[in-house]
């Protein structure tokens, strides 16, 4: 990948701490290599204690690498952070409880040295975007956990950063809140911003992510596109349609699940889909739905974690 297209480059990264009374060295990350492209959305997936948050903190310069290198937007993590090009939301929002919603975002604006009017305009726009309109003059301590989480995401978005790093952005959110964040992710993606986030909520990443990075026991297991991963795991399809079905015209490997007057359902193996659709179209069948037969992304990921050793 060309350097100017890279948002994050991690090479042979080791991050270790001293733990316990005797200060035994523990490596939370071991020889991690990663190249994340600009303008794409990446999910870091792994069990608790896998090293996701450690990796995120190293990317922000909060943790110093024991070995290896880390380049963020072409420079060191410290340079990237001080340039204001990064937006970060920690796992626990960590907002000041006595500040009002608007004041919280204005604090981010003042750290970014935005003018007062610009900061206010941006803050109000974000408050609206995050579904917090009407709560901006309330103190944060009166916010629900989900609202605090959304406000923290707003804090990270102040100053229009080009790289967003979110640690568990969906934790504590109700379905409505998750919907707001999912839409926000889609908007950020369409704006061409790079988003890296860790999560345990797998269904949410299926639609939003360009790539998934699997981490376990401080090591990167694999990196892949969820779409390609799911396509690979698809065994076949369930086709449902309207009209008269002519079973003789179908391939031998196609199974008729249901054939009533006016409606039918077929199980089609992956390799026969194109041919089956052609035949159905020729015999006047109208396809209504097409559902892949495959395990869910969550099941596939669990399987991959269990099988990597």
């Amino acid at each position, binding site marked *: 990948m060309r350097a100017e297209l890279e948002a994050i480059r991690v090479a042979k990264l080791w991050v270790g701490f001293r733990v316990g009374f005797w200060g035994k060295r523990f490596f939370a990350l071991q020889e991690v290599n990663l190249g994340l492209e600009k303008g794409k959305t990446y999910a870091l997936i792994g069990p608790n204690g896998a090293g996701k948050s450690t990796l995120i903190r190293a990317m922000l310069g*909060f943790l110093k690498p024991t070995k290896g290198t880390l380049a963020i937007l072409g420079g060191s993590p410290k340079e990237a952070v001080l340039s204001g090009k990064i*937006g970060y939301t*920690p796992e626990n929002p960590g907002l000041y409880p*006595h500040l009002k919603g608007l004041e919280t975002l204005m604090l981010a604006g003042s750290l970014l040295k935005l003018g007062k009017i610009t900061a206010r305009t941006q803050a109000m726009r974000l408050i609206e975007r995050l579904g917090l309109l009407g709560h901006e003059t309330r103190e944060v301590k009166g916010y629900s956990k989900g609202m605090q989480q959304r406000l923290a995401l707003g804090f*990270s978005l102040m100053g229009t950063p080009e790289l967003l790093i979110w640690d568990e952005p969906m934790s504590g959110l109700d379905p409505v809140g998750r919907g707001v964040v999912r839409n926000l992710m889609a908007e950020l993606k369409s704006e061409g911003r790079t988003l890296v986030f860790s999560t345990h909520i797998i269904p949410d990443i299926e639609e939003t992510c360009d790539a998934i990075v699997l981490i376990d026991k401080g090591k990167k297991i694999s990196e892949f596109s969820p779409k390609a991963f799911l396509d690979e795991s698809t065994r076949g399809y369930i086709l449902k349609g309207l009209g008269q079905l002519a079973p003789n015209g179908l391939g031998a490997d196609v199974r008729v699940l249901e054939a009533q007057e006016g409606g039918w359902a077929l199980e089609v193996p992956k390799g026969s889909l194109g041919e089956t659709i052609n035949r159905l179209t020729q015999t006047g069948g109208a396809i209504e739905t097409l559902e892949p037969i495959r395990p869910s992304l969550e099941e596939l990921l669990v399987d991959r974690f269990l099988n990597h050793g």
Partner: protein
Amino acid sequence: MARLALVTAKEITRQKLFYAIALVALVLIGVGVLFGTSALYDPKRFVYDAGQASMYLFGCFTAILFGASMVPKELERGSAYLLLAKPLSRSGFVAGKFFGLLLVGVLLVFGLLIPFALVYGLVYQGTLNAAFFLGAMIDVGKLGVLGSLALALGTFSTPTLSVMLTVFVWLIATGLEAAATSARFIEIGWMRAVVPALYRTLPNFGIVAADLETVLILGVPCPVWLLSLLYLSLWSTVFVLLACIAFERRNLVR
């Protein structure tokens, strides 16, 4: 940094502990008045002893208690990460916290100075002049030294340990002048050597001869007052710099 200082000051002043400290300090001034009314001679003495003690002691308590827990609390809550992911250096973060703490110290000391001065001047017909202000500034300087030390220790240790160590240094700083003066009378050889060494290396509140009492009673000349304030400011700067270095170097792990 100024914004962070204001947020810090607001955060401290929204805590019940701060008001508990302020209330006890006010009660101490009230006790001084109470004893003053029943004193056989020099009732003013009770009032300004109590007033000075409440400003100095509770100002220092505030600085130590809040200074020691400031950084660990921010790391625990996660707000430090939120702020440090914005264009704010770690040193800027520490400095912002210190100035917020100092602002609270100014608020507390001058907040207590008002009732103290009112009682002293109006009820006991004491002289109200600029000396009140100058003496209070020295108290702020002292709490600045202790607050910055607690803050510095809090950047790499626990709040409890920071409080204990800062109180220890406070006691030494208060008694150092007297100990150094009488060092030659100390019988144990190594202690005779340690006391002058401490005298030269630790902050010494004894040589700051411009606290409220001496300013009020003796009318300490302006250069002495200025030098005292400069001395305290230098120590605060040293501790804030140490805090910045310690915080810049450490890994930020919750």
